[in-house]
């Protein structure tokens, strides 16, 4: 009886201790994550100018309705969709191809892997600054193009090219990261599968189609979903390279959100943008879970 009781208190003590050890994380989570999360959700239903906190009013769904009649936001939304569907398939495909190539290399694997992975560990701000000069009128890209007799362009200033230029940079910068993920998945495929396929007289294409692809399917899924989520949130590239210009052709949801919140100080309205984006990304995440569930 007594032993049971002391066991209970020690359990209580233990949980208290655990709580103490976890306190730093829990506190930061509560203060810097949960509180802003809830507060911004409430804000998204309010009219709130940070300069006039006293005029904060509940305005229902007005902020959300306003999103749809805000030309700039709609333009930013369309640009983001273009960005997501322009980059995600290309990144997935190219990084898979690179991983397949690297997987067959015996010498210098480490070198190539690091070379391709390097861009993804450089800060995107640094990458953007490099690309700003790479894309400039007499930058390397135009010199290269003129070598092949193609007329030069101001890539980031012409409305037609600004967004594709940013997308190309994003593809270059993130390909290595996903390649490493694919490489890991490829390395995990048991060699026996290929050996028995060889015995059965399967060709390279068949081996890829019936062994490699099904085996790395979870990874493909993971890469597609993670990449989609990241693409929806595209911001630093736009912020450093174009600030949404020219004529708003590179404006994205998060950049619009930033401008609304920190340039025009409309916190309520920008919170509504944030929650719309949240809903979109939540949809994609749910889809991912569903997909992974069917896996099992």
């Amino acid at each position, binding site marked *: 009886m007594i032993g049971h009781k002391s066991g209970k208190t020690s359990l209580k003590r233990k949980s208290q201790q655990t709580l103490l050890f976890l306190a730093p994380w829990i506190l930061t989570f509560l203060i810097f994550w949960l509180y802003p999360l809830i507060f911004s959700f409430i804000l998204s239903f309010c009219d709130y100018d940070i300069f006039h906190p006293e005029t904060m009013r509940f*305005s229902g769904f007005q902020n959300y309705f306003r999103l749809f*009649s805000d030309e700039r936001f709609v333009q930013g939304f369309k640009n983001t969709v273009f960005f997501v569907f322009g980059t995600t398939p290309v990144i997935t495909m190219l990084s898979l191809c690179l991983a397949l190539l690297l997987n067959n290399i015996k010498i210098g694997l480490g070198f190539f892997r690091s070379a391709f992975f390097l861009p993804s560990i450089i800060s995107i701000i640094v990458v953007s600054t490099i690309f700003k000069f790479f894309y400039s*009128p*007499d930058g390397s890209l135009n010199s290269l193009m003129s070598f092949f007799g193609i007329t030069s362009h101001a890539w980031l200033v012409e409305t037609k090219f600004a967004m594709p230029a940013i997308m190309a940079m994003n593809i270059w910068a993130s390909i290595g990261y996903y390649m490493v993920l694919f490489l890991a998945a490829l390395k995990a495929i048991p060699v026996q599968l290929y050996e028995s396929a060889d015995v059965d007289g399967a060709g390279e294409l068949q081996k890829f189609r019936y062994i490699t692809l099904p085996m790395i*399917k979870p990874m493909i899924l993971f890469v597609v979903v993670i990449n989609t989520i990241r693409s929806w949130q595209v911001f630093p590239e736009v912020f450093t390279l174009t*600030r949404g*210009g020219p004529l708003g052709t590179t404006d994205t949801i998060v950049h619009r959100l930033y401008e609304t919140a920190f340039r025009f100080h409309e916190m309520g309205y920008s919170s509504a943008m944030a929650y719309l984006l949240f809903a979109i990304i939540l949809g994609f995440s749910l889809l991912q879970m569903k997909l992974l569930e069917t896996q099992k």
Partner: protein
Amino acid sequence: MLKIRKFKCCKPVVFLIRISPMTKRLICLDFPLKVALVLLFLFAPPIFGEDELVFWNFWDPKFILPVIQKFEALHPGIKIRNEQLNWGNGLDKIVVAHANKRAPDICELGSTWTGKFMSEGALIDLTEKVRDLSDKLAMWEPATWNGKIYGVPWLVGTRVLFFNKALFRESGLSPQNPPETWDDLINCAQKIHNPKNGIYGIGINAGEGHILYKKFLPFVWGNGGRILDETGKFVFDSLETKEALSFYQRLMVYGLKEKQDILDDAFKRGKLGMEISGSWNFARYPKEAPNLEYDVALIPRPGKNKGHTSSFLGGEILVLFKGCKNPDMAAEFLKFITKAEYALPITKEALVSFPASKEAFSDPFFSADPRFAIFIKQMETAVHPPVHPLWIELESIINDAVEKVLYGGDIDAGLKNATLAYEKISKQYQDRKNGNAYSESTSSGNKSESGETLGFVSSPLSIFLLAAVSLGTLFNAILLLLIYGEVKKNVG
């Protein structure tokens, strides 16, 4: 008291390294108390340093710290803490700090931001304290609101016309006669412009925010145009602006449309005949391109007998936020740091802007290079953009209107839309001021460029479009799922 508490809350950390049974008991016994102490410790930092004056600015501490040291030596007992902001998010930081009542005591503000802070009543009235400075410093407009002075000008900057002498000679132009009128400017740009060889007539700013209007507005001002009149009415849609815009359209043909840093770089490499730029190039060009032959000139005026030369005037204002712990001493510090002798080192090294103190211009530094004289002369006619609570929105409206024209938009429609956009934001501002919440008929500025009023009429269509896009996204994802399912089935 505070010290003991701080010690106590550190205790668990100390003991956790080698846990003894006693500490275990201690940890468990007063756990809630400990949590409270940890919380207190987390929020403790603002409590310390009560009597320190906090100074936020955008400069390398090596310029600021020596001045603070000298000031502290002269005024024993006063402590000033220097904190450096960066231009990327400095304004956000100041705004958020102000909203949370944590604004610094002393703060440097960009001269186009002050309108907002002054009109919101965020700053301390310094009219009495700085009365004796009024003749000594320049650029008081951005520090003045409703006849009262809320700040002290620290640094001022303007832009002039840079031109490449070598390219002038090669094109048969005289480097001794830089363009004086709009027609001259177009003529020079046309003669130099040779994109086949990678040589461009003049640099036109594009592809980034916040810059274009600074380069374009001088032509409006020089032509007698304005953004707001005395009563605060938006008068940008005027004949003067239209003339300036159509001149800009003609000029643009012989120009390189790029961002400021790329234009500066092209000029440095001798690829650009002319550009409107600032004194920061003086710090770079002699080091990076010693052979570059260039000179500066006043910004051209509309015609021989028409208008005058004008440029953009901007700079740094030092202000005291309400809640400043020691306004008298802080004001003394403002007077101290804006003195020519302390502002000059910043100019000499960074060359971004000049001291607001007029005495500084008698320094031999400015007479050593005749090109500085042009800057000082240009400053006499340079105009500071309107000091207005909605300047940030206005700036974006103007920038958008000019950018539209730059990309082939119609001048009249662009200006009409700018007026509409201004009416919207000013109505919204008035509504807020009167305590009314945002109403659907007013939407925030800088949008609705097509000129149609967007309300409930068009929103169902937009909702439909957006819903279609979202559905499409979902549909695509489902397709993806199906394809994978199919692959799996085949494999199985």
